[in-house]
């Protein structure tokens, strides 16, 4: 389960835990492009949901800052959010393989932000092979917020934090896979991923 510290991912995790799935949380730590608050929020989200369901959700924290630096230096900033997502998915898949997980999950809901248009979701997830579960895909923001309030994660998610400084001024909302693959050729995908996963920390 990819966790960001926002409103959606703990709600998505809540639904999957409620169905009885054993879940592993993965957080791509975006420092120095953000601050410590996402990690603090996720720790609190997990503590709350673990208490509610009476079982542990291990969390992998992977450094994503070096990936962002490589992307910002070498690729078209316009598609930076899609490239960033592709690396997040790949890193999560590596952890899933390590954990013998059978699917990946997120709190994505269609059309909420630049990275969650159908076009961008498609190009982002073309980088992985495991099935992807998105419990909130058809929810609107108000519905997600209502559930977040009822399960107690909303106040944690909405604490002030620093927004991602790697987001370009005008991120692409439509992206073609050919263009994305061409951009990715400018970086050493495997080396970046190996380094990211090698430095994973289990909390």
């Amino acid at each position, binding site marked *: 389960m990819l966790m960001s510290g926002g409103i959606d991912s703990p709600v998505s995790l809540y639904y999957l835990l409620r169905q009885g799935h054993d879940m592993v949380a993965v957080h791509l730590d975006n420092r120095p492009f953000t601050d410590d608050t996402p990690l603090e929020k996720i720790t609190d989200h997990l503590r709350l949901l673990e208490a509610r369901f009476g079982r542990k959700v291990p969390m992998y924290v992977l450094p994503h*800052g070096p990936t962002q630096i490589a992307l910002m230096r070498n690729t078209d900033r316009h598609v930076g959010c899609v490239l960033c997502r592709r690396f997040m998915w790949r890193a999560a898949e590596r952890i899933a393989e390590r954990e013998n997980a059978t699917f990946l999950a997120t709190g994505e809901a269609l059309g909420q932000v630049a990275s969650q248009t159908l076009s961008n979701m498609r190009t982002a997830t073309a980088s992985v092979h495991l099935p992807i579960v998105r419990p909130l895909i058809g929810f609107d923001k108000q519905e997600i917020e209502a559930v977040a309030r009822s399960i107690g994660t909303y106040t944690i998610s909405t604490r*002030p934090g*620093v*927004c991602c400084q790697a987001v370009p001024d005008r991120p692409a909302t439509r992206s073609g896979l050919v263009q994305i693959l061409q951009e990715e050729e400018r970086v050493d995908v495997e080396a970046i991923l190996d380094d990211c996963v090698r430095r994973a920390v289990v909390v």
Partner: protein
Amino acid sequence: MKYHALRVCANRGAFEAVPAEPVQLDLQRVRGGFELEGIQVLDCRVMLIAQMEREVTVGRDGRILIKSTNGPEAERLLQHVEAVLASAAAP
């Protein structure tokens, strides 16, 4: 270099200023400008993190992020950073 008005960033934990026109900063020169004033700078190659009263980041695209939730303080820090950028851009 002119900036749009300072605005609170989406997650409400910082203030952000965006250049009114597209720019590409020479971060090495900007770093030198900060260091001349005795301000410690972490160079992340695509942006600088300056340890002022609050942490301030300056991106290659000129975007400035001030990690403060206090408007007047952020405004004052922005003016300081703008002065550093102006001196770094001087021939």
